[in-house]
């Protein structure tokens, strides 16, 4: 049995071999194999402790799922990582050296953390094409942006992503005219354009059909390895289809962590979640 | 009151008669006896009356010397009417009838005068302008008359009159006066008159040859806020030969200066609080609409202006009742501005919820319309709003600190309005609904709150308060169609500084800004002080974008 497990472990799609590390920022130090460290994070809003001594670690190239009941603090945790909320205590590091608590949202995005939001927040007045162009990785300072022109390589990349998210036919339509599900895809597309090292994906399956969910799962699985992905989800089928490791959050801290089976059979989790 | 003002006006009067002490004392005692005799010897009155009869005609003489003598004779006569006569003489009401040189009191009636006999008060009928001949007096006489009046009134049964007389006497060191003061001090019961007399005596004693007396006098003057005390001490510092006395005088002066500085600070504080209370009144309506509803109302200044104009119209309608006009104007202004507010909300603002920038523009348009409306319907010029009599005058806390009543009342009024509003918002059902709607509209509606009605009423409340503020402002500044514009930016500054949506923040913010403004004024001047306050707030907002007391929960986003 152990040999089988080891084999399975070696063969899993998001297994990171050191020779597979992509071109990394000099700043982003992944020498220890971990891309995200959250240690002893706490934050309260008006007396309500949203995050309570949270410890959360993500390996390079991992595909992690975070689940938990409503109010467990999943979105707040993402807010902290992306700089939208500052914790009261604790440390948050991106790689070995980048202190996330010292950076603002734009800097964190530039450093290589991308986020897809729970509610689609695409730019309604811009076309799909333009949304992707805006999200595209590159020099985002003022003057370079003013003089920027799309190179052919960049155009191809946009085309590629449009194919992946299935919106190639609608590239010139304003994003506000898309359906909810299509907006979700656009969000994912924008995330892809950012080409971040760490993707934070908040409820990608919401409002999607089964086929779309399958496509999303496939997409996420393919991303793992070159990128590190953290997915927050409620839909257990979806989670099962993508997850290697699952973290369960409850009342602002980690309740359990492990493979899907381990977590599902954990009595504490059952108690909190009442089954599925 | 008048006496004290007059006394204070004669500020740097150094004792002008350095008559040798012995002579002064003799004369003083003689005068004292005479006065006492006159006061306690009614049998003398009849003789005195005969005396007055004889003396009065002297006033018709041309010679000022003769007239001066007549004045002192009148004063010395002991006749109880002497003081009144002298007052009439001073005021120019004492004249002589040309026909028979009879001394009469002339009251202006139409183009002529109504005459009454000066002594008996008998009505002598009317006469035209040329029927009387003025009794002219010169300045020297004026001084003497005033002094005489003061001496006479010093023993008046009315403590106010005694106060006035004593204040008048301060700074004069002639023997008569000093003696009179001493005599009165012995029997004086009123504390303030005592102090005045003590000061007056002390000032006189500063010229005494004996340094011990002078020291005692300096001691008596220490801590006195009367300007005469200070002036005399300052003068003493120049002339004083003895070092010990000089040192004592310097110390006393320093003490006085320190006290004056404290009082000046208190005065600045008062003015600052007064200005702050005006700001609070103006801003509190805005705090409600902006803070609770998230609506920017650029017409707020005009709602204030409408309240001020309501006061004007009330006074126009009831010209006899100026003293009551404010009591009527407050509810009237509340209703008028409130109705306008509700109209604005129902007609324009409710279509623009969630679009604060558009609301800003639309309400600005309304402010222009309201201004032009007032210009067209009433007048483009400023109008005159009168102060009721009970608002005039001031509370004289001490000789250097006077708090004007109008500011005092407005300060109290602002606090009353604030607390009334607090009660309305915290204790009444409407207040509860308002707070609910502002925090979570959907939830409130789900619980049966008619949010549209609440919106209209809230806006009406804020507008009504603005109207009431206008009533108060009409008492302080000029009332014209543009007056609202001066307050709109200030009101916003107060609300933004104090914390949007927080009434206490508005109170603290407004009072703070008012005091800060006044504190800076002596150094920078009014305009620059205002500019600095504006700049300060701009910078403050960078540090604390939500103001002093940020609102929890749903804030006015946008």
């Amino acid at each position, binding site marked *: 049995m152990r040999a089988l497990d080891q084999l399975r472990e070696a063969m899993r799609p998001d297994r990171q071999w050191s020779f597979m590390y992509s071109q990394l920022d000099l700043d982003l130090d992944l020498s220890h194999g971990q891309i995200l460290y959250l240690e002893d994070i706490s934050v309260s809003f008006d007396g309500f402790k949203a995050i309570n001594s949270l410890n959360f670690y993500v390996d390079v190239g991992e595909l992690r799922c975070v689940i938990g009941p409503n109010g467990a603090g999943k979105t707040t945790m993402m807010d902290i990582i*992306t700089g939208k909320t500052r914790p009261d205590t604790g440390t948050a590091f991106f790689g070995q050296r980048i202190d996330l608590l010292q950076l*603002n*949202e*734009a800097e964190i*995005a530039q450093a290589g953390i*991308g*986020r897809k*939001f729970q509610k689609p*927040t695409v*730019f*309604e*007045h*811009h*076309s799909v094409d*333009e949304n992707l*162009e*805006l*999200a595209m*990785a590159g020099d*985002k*300072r*003022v003057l370079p*942006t*003013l003089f920027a022109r799309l190179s052919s390589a960049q155009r191809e990349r946009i085309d590629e992503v449009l194919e992946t998210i299935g919106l190639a036919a609608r590239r010139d339509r*304003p994003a506000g005219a898309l359906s909810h599900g299509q907006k979700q895809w656009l969000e994912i597309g*924008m995330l892809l354009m*950012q080409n971040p090292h760490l993707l934070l994906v908040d409820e990608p399956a919401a409002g999607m059909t089964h086929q779309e969910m399958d496509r999303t799962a496939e997409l996420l699985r393919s991303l793992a390895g070159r990128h590190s992905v953290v997915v927050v989800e409620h839909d257990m089928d979806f989670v099962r289809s993508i997850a290697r490791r699952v973290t369960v959050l409850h009342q602002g801290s980690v309740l359990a962590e492990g493979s899907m089976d381990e977590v599902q059979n954990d009595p504490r989790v059952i108690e909190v979640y009442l089954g599925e | 009151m008048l006496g004290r003002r007059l006394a204070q006006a004669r500020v740097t009067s150094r004792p002008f008669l350095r008559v040798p002490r012995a002579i002064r004392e003799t004369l003083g005692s003689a005068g004292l006896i005479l006065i006492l005799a006159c006061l306690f010897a009614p049998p003398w009155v009849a003789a005195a009356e005969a005396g007055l009869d004889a003396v009065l005609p002297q006033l018709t003489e041309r010679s000022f010397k003769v007239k001066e003598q007549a004045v002192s004779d009148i004063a010395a006569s002991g006749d109880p009417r002497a003081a009144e006569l002298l007052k009439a003489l001073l005021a120019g009401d004492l004249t002589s009838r040309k026909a028979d040189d009879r001394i009469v009191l002339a009251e202006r009636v139409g183009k002529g005068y109504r005459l009454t006999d000066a002594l008996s008060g008998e009505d002598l009928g009317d006469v035209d302008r040329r029927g009387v001949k003025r009794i002219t007096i010169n300045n020297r006489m004026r001084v003497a008359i005033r002094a005489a009046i003061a001496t006479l009134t010093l023993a008046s049964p009315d403590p106010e009159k005694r106060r006035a007389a004593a204040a008048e006497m301060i700074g004069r060191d002639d023997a008569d006066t000093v003696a009179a003061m001493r005599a009165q001090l012995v029997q004086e019961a009123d504390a303030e008159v005592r102090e005045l007399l003590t000061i007056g005596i002390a000032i006189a004693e500063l010229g005494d040859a004996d340094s011990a007396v002078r020291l005692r006098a300096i001691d008596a003057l220490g801590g006195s806020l009367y300007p005469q005390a200070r002036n005399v001490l300052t003068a003493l510092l120049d002339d004083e030969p003895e070092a010990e006395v000089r040192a004592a005088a310097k110390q006393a002066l320093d003490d006085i200066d320190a006290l004056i500085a404290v009082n000046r600070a208190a005065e600045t504080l008062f003015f600052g609080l007064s200005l702050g209370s005006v700001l609070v009144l103006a801003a509190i309506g805005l705090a409600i609409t902006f803070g609770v509803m998230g609506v*920017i109302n650029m017409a707020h200044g005009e709602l204030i202006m409408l309240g001020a104009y309501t006061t004007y119209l009330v006074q126009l309608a009831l010209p006899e009742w100026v003293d009551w006009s404010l009591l009527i104007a407050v509810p009237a202004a509340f209703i008028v501005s409130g109705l306008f507010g509700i109209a604005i909300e129902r007609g*324009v603002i409710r*279509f*623009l919820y969630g679009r*604060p*920038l*558009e*609301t*800003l*523009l*639309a309400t*600005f*348009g309304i402010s*222009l*319309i*309201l201004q032009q409306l007032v*210009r*067209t319907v009433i007048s483009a010029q400023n109008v005159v709003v009168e102060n009721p009599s009970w608002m005039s005058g001031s509370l004289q806390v001490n000789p250097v600190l006077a708090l004007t009543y109008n500011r005092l009342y407005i300060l109290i009024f602002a606090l009353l309005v604030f607390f009334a509003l607090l009660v309305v918002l915290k204790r009444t059902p409407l207040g509860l609904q308002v707070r609910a709607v502002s925090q979570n509209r959907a939830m409130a509606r789900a619980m049966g709150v008619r949010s549209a009605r609440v919106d209209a009423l809230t806006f009406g409340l804020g507008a009504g308060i603005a109207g009431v503020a206008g009533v108060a402002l009409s008492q302080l500044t000029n009332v014209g169609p543009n007056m609202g*514009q001066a307050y709109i*930016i200030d009101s*916003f*500054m107060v609300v*933004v500084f104090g914390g949007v949506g927080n009434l206490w923040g508005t109170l603290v913010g407004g009072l703070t800004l008012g005091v800060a403004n006044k504190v800076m004024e002596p150094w920078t001047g009014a*305009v*620059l002080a205002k*500019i600095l306050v*504006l700049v300060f707030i*701009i910078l403050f907002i*960078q*540090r604390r*974008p939500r103001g002093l007391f940020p609102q929890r929960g749903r804030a006015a*986003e*946008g």
Partner: protein
Amino acid sequence: MALLRPLRGDTGGQIMFGVLALAMVLVPVLNLAVPEGNPLHLSTFTVTLLGKYLTYALLAVAVDLVWGYMGILSLGHGAFFALGGYAMGMYLMRQIGDRGVYGDPILPDFMVFLNWKELPWFWHGMDMFWLAALMVVLVPGLLAFVFGALAFRSRVTGVYLSIMTQALTYALMLAFFRNEMGFGGNNGLTDFKDILGFDLQADGTRVALFLASALALALGYLACRWIVTSRLGRVMVAIRDSEARVRFIGYRVEYVKLAVFTFSAMLAGIAGALYVPQVGIINPGELSPLNSIELVIWVAIGGRATLYGAVIGALVVNYGKSVFTGILPEAWLFVLGGLFVLVTLFLPRGIAGIAAMLRRRPAGEGTA
């Protein structure tokens, strides 16, 4: 021509340019070549009036850039306009030389009147056109930069920001009203004689100023159009629609706002500098909060986020103002106030929106 490339896709702008080009030819001809008395003659007064309108149009375009495209409702742009105007005014005052009432070759009349003995430091060198021109752009730009740096970095947005801009222009107005500031107090700077050696009253100069205003409008418009059609323009619109989201994709929103706001202020300064020689006076009244709010309504009426809408709005409203104050001065404020209310309630897209509705194509969304 490459210069006109930003106009691609901007039908409104193209039409506007056409009209402008036509005007730039017709106006000089109708004023200078056609004799007076001829019904086609354009009076110099009208030339100056048109020139004034064009400077207003440039100012409106500057406001549309930050408001329509970035969502910053600046209610203090009049301050930048006035500061540019004052810089030009200072140059013109120095040009008067000894032809003033008091005849002092260095000190302007109002300084002599105040018994000042020498020029304040900031007046030195303002007799040189190049320095004055530099100040026209630098002073408003610097003010905008400092203000923006403070405001945008602390993420003050929306109505707060608008009130701050109002306070800014209000404070400046109070300051400039004081004689001690050295800008002529409440009388301002006036009685100008000539500019660059040309008599300000001469027809030729007036026409030249008109042409300069038209040119400035054209170039300013092209510059704004170029910005708006670039990727930065798309970022601007994204900021307008969803500022926080833009941060999350890595753009430094504060810097974008700062850059564009400063540029807009400089444009406004240039507009002010062209305005002053044509109207012959600059006084603190230009700094009044009312002026700044009024110019926002020009943009709103014309149609924000279109750029040419700002031009239309500025022209239409100011023309209407001239007409009304001529016939029914009492009614003008009613009309203006009414316009504010009506446009915000019923015409959020302004005149350009009407035009777009007629053409059945969405306009004013900021897309290239």
